[in-house]
């Protein structure tokens, strides 16, 4: 009977029911979707790891890895593969730093993905990575490898591949060229002449997730075992190498001592000719040098080590893990705000519903129904709404949100096959939280109501008595207020709980909408800020290493002849590494040979204070934040084996990568520049390309790149990022709408008698509307203002948790975003207002007569 009753009340209040379902749907869906994204991404990498049989350990020996080392590990029961590898410069159109690997067609570990063409068969064939640098390379093109010990140095490209050891665009650093590997290359192992290997991969028999604790433990134990094995291998190898050298050393020592004694003997003997003395002295000197050399050799061998690196120190895997962590961080706060708002609204709705039906509850109670039976009606109502909302919510949430987020991250990674799963634990978790909140609210208010005796219940709850508000104690203001405004102000402050709920609801949803826009702002601003405002040059020319001063002067002369080039700055740019926590940050150290201010804007981001590069070092903002350095602090770093200890004279605005700017000192010789910054006239993409082609003709130019290129690649990454913000705006907007709608409808139903009475008094529809709307507007204004503030904080927090070490967002929400947020909120409140206008119109005046007090 009561079950039937609850369905009837659902039908009767279907609008309220639907809005309840929708709020739960949004809250739970968003919660589940965002929370699922990080585990889904981890699953995806795991799937990839299993699919490609990615290595668990990478072993490197400074002395080279021998066949016997491989055998030894195999004997210990490990699945291992050893490969050859070296870095080289390959010139094709421009010079690139390339990593060369040996390819074994029987390889089981780190299996390659063929993107185009076929895998190499012959010694003179190779496959290369497909990326920005190699996008114009064709199958059939020839690459010449100058360095390294290869049989065939001219290799024909047979295809493009993706190696699973590089899951991100980020590759190892090298001491060649710009310091970064541009692409990698695989040529058959038969093409390598070396009798030692460079890298040894170990593949454990592992089914666990590489992000799991079990895996961590496994890695730890195996690491220790491998340590023992390699130490032993290292010692015996050292012995092997050192024994002959030591013998050589002792022979040399004897020789040296003999010669020395001879020399000592004749040194002061006037009978021996000066010529003979000199000859002996020089022999002694040669022997001394040989001795030192040998000692150095021994030292090097003795210092040689094995390095054991597990998969988590793979640069791509590390970054990926960091990204999933950041995402998990966002998933901590965002859905929470969402949830809180949604739940609060449910609470208000359910409270209202129970209170509205006091009389009915009283009747049932006086008929002898038990409290539980009566309560069950409301529980069914709330339970069914929550379950329906949760089920639809998690189904949509799990599908849509992780997919969009993965697509956005995928731009930076080469991992296909997104593993999008239905995560039962999260689904249950979200549904449970929603259930606890809605049912809690329902049970709480029902129990409160049910405690009263039936007679009391048959009368509606005594309305909250009127109270004076603080403002009335200031007659100066109060007297000036219009009568209807006084009423409004009193009403606003009458119901503290409702006031609070409304403010939280409105400010929460406003904050979410603003956060959406704000994130979009900050993300989209990054590229133009970096590549137009901070970097004001258009192109970078890298000069070939070891160019002479004359060659460089020649190049500048040539460049100056070009009409398109308006200004040239000579700089020395070196990549260095700075340790920060467990990671190393790549920093570019730039020393300008001229006035840098026209090329790079050095200024404080917040105060816009301009910096002049005269002494000390100016460092970019993010690295300063990471290292916790302020202006006036001292910073130490090493460039080209030269140690610097400089005072920080400025922390400059910069959003991508890290930079140190050093003024030109006496030690920097006139010709030690290696890079040129160019300012050009306004060029189209094609004109830039033409200019690049023309410049590459000039001998001594290693590469030329335009800032517009980096801008474009970066732009597309950032665009995907913006979609996340868009999801946020849309879902937050929806939430805001439902919140407003619900609060307004509760507001009306709560005061239906009061409104009916003033209608009888002869208030026109418009006046009745204004009577309630004024309150809503005040609450709306207060809520929105608080919401804008909260949104700002939310943007700051989210950006700080999700920005990578290499970049920095300017966490300032742009003015138009405030405007759009306000606009959206105003549109929503207007729609809600208009619907409430019609709801008010429908209020039956008879209500004022029949109700009992």
């Amino acid at each position, binding site marked *: 009977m009561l079950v039937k009753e609850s369905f009837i009340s659902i039908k009767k209040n279907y609008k309220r029911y639907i809005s309840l379902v929708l709020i739960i749907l949004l809250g739970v869906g968003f919660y589940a979707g965002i929370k699922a994204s990080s585990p889904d991404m981890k699953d995806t990498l795991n799937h990839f790891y299993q699919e490609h049989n990615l290595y668990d350990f990478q072993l490197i020996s400074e002395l080279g890895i021998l066949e016997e080392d491989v055998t030894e590990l195999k004997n210990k029961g490990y699945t291992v593969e050893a490969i050859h590898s070296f870095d080289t410069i390959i010139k094709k159109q421009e010079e690139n730093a390339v990593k060369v690997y040996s390819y074994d067609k029987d390889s089981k570990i780190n299996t390659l993905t063929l993107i185009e063409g076929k895998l190499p068969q012959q010694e003179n064939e190779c496959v290369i990575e497909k990326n920005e640098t190699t996008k114009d390379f064709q199958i059939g093109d020839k690459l010449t490898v100058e360095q390294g010990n290869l049989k065939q140095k001219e290799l024909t490209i047979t295809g493009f591949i993706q190696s699973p050891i590089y899951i991100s665009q980020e590759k190892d650093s090298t001491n060649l060229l710009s310091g970064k590997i541009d692409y990698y290359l695989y040529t058959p192992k038969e093409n390598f002449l070396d009798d030692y290997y460079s890298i040894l991969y170990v593949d454990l028999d592992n089914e666990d997730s590489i992000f799991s604790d079990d895996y961590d433990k496994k890695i730890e134990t195996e690491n220790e075992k491998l340590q023992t094995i390699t130490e032993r291998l290292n010692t015996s190898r050292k012995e092997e190498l050192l024994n002959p050298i030591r013998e050589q050393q002792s022979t040399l020592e004897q020789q040296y001592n003999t010669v020395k004694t001879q020399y000592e003997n004749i040194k002061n003997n006037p009978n021996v000719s000066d010529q003979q003395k000199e000859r002996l002295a020089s022999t002694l000197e040669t022997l001394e040098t040989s001795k030192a050399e040998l000692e150095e050799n021994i030292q090097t061998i003795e210092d040689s080590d094995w390095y054991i690196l597990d998969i988590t120190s793979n640069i791509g895997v590390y970054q990926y893990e960091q990204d999933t962590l950041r995402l998990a961080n966002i998933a901590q706060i965002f859905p929470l705000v969402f949830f809180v708002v949604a739940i609060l609204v449910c609470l208000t709705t359910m409270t209202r519903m129970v209170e509205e039906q006091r009389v009915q509850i009283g009747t049932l109670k006086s008929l002898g129904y038990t409290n539980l039976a009566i309560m069950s009606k409301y529980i069914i109502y709330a339970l069914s709404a929550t379950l329906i909302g949760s089920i639809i919510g998690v189904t949509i949430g799990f599908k849509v949100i992780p997919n969009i987020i993965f697509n956005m991250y995928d731009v930076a990674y080469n991992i296909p096959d997104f593993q999008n799963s239905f995560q039962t634990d999260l689904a249950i978790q979200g549904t449970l939280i929603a259930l606890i909140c809605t049912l809690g609210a329902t049970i709480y208010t029902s129990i409160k109501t049910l405690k009263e005796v039936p007679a009391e219940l048959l009368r509606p709850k*005594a*309305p*909250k*008595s*009127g*109270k004076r508000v603080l403002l009335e104690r200031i007659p100066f203001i109060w007297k000036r207020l219009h*009568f*209807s405004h*006084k*009423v409004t102000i*009193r*009403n606003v402050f*009458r119901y503290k709980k409702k006031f609070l709920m409304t403010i939280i609801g409105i400010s929460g949803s406003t904050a979410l909408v603003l956060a959406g826009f704000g994130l979009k702002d900050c993300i989209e601003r990054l590229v133009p800020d970096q590549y137009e405002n901070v970097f004001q040059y258009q192109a970078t020319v890298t000069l070939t290493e070891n160019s002479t001063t004359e060659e460089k002067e020649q190049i500048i002369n040539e460049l100056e002849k070009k009409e398109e080039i308006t200004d040239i700055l000579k700089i020395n740019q070196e990549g260095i590494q700075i340790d920060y926590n467990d990671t190393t940050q790549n920093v570019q150290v730039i020393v300008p040979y001229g006035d840098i201010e026209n090329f790079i804007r050095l200024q404080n981001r917040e105060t816009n204070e301009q910096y002049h590069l005269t002494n000390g070092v100016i460092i970019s903002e993010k690295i300063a934040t990471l290292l916790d350095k302020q202006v006036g602090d001292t910073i130490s770093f090493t460039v080209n084996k030269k140690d610097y200890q400089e005072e920080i004279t400025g922390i400059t605005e910069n959003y991508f990568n890290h930079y140190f700017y050093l003024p030109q000192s006496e030690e920097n010789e006139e010709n030690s520049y290696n890079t040129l910054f160019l300012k050009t006239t306004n060029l189209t993409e094609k004109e830039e390309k033409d200019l690049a082609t023309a410049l590459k003709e000039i001998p001594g130019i290693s590469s030329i790149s335009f800032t517009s290129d980096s801008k474009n690649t970066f732009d597309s990454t950032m665009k995907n990022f913006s979609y996340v913000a868009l999801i946020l705006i849309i879902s937050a907007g929806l939430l805001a709408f439902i919140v407003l709608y619900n609060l307004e409808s509760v507001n009306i139903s709560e005061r239906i*008698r*009061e409104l009916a*009475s*003033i*209608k*009888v*008094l*002869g*208030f*026109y*529809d418009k*006046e009745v509307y204004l009577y309630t709307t004024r309150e809503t507007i005040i609450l709306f204004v207060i809520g929105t203002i608080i919401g804008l503030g909260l949104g700002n904080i939310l943007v700051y927090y989210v950006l700080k948790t999700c920005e990578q070490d290499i970049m920095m967002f300017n966490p300032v929400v742009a003015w138009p975003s405030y405007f759009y947020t306000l606009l959206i909120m105003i549109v929503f409140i207007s729609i809600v207002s208009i619907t409430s206008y019609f709801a008010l119109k429908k209020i039956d*005046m*008879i209500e*004022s*007569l029949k*109700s*009992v*007090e």
Partner: protein
Amino acid sequence: MSYIEFKDVNKIYGEKESEIHALVNTSFQIEKSELVVILGPSGAGKTTALNILGGMDNATNGEVIIDGNNITHYNKKQLTRYRRNDIGFVFQFYNLIQNLTALENVELATEICKDHFDPKEILKSVGLENRMNNFPSQLSGGEQQRVAIARAIAKNPKILLADEPTGALDYMTGKQILKLLKQIQQERGVTVIIITHNSAIAPMADKVIKFKNGQVEDITINEKPLPVDEIEW
């Protein structure tokens, strides 16, 4: 022509099969400045008549003429204007706005009509000069009903409609309220219509209209209405 003319008024609620005839060919007249009691058990149609007289509802057919204006086919807006300017309402349960003081409750009504009395004066005249700044919850039932009456008459209405004005009050207080209504009729010349099921009140009226089953059963005119003090129930 009388001040209020109710001619062959029918009120039918609902659709065809489930039609309810709340009023059937009802007719009566009320003169200006009369105190009229409309009497009848619940379901007799007196509340429907009140709704139509009070401009809260339209008659299905027939004619309702108030002070020469035919309000039968007034649209919503015209009805609102009619309620606003011509009608004062006193409810059984006072229907005061809880969040407004006594004075403000009166002001709420005078706010919206042009030709109104001073709210303070009116409250004084109903004997509440010392309770003006109290909220309804701080007033007794009788006091609350006085505020409601003050709110109704402050608008300077043509007709004062009182729906069971003593229904929620004890005997003594109820009597005082009736006295107040009588006093208003006599001193201000307002037409007062009291709707009640309590036939004991009838002797105080100039005219008694009895309702039964949606029809006027009987209309009595008291040549000498009794003072309120002399009636008992």
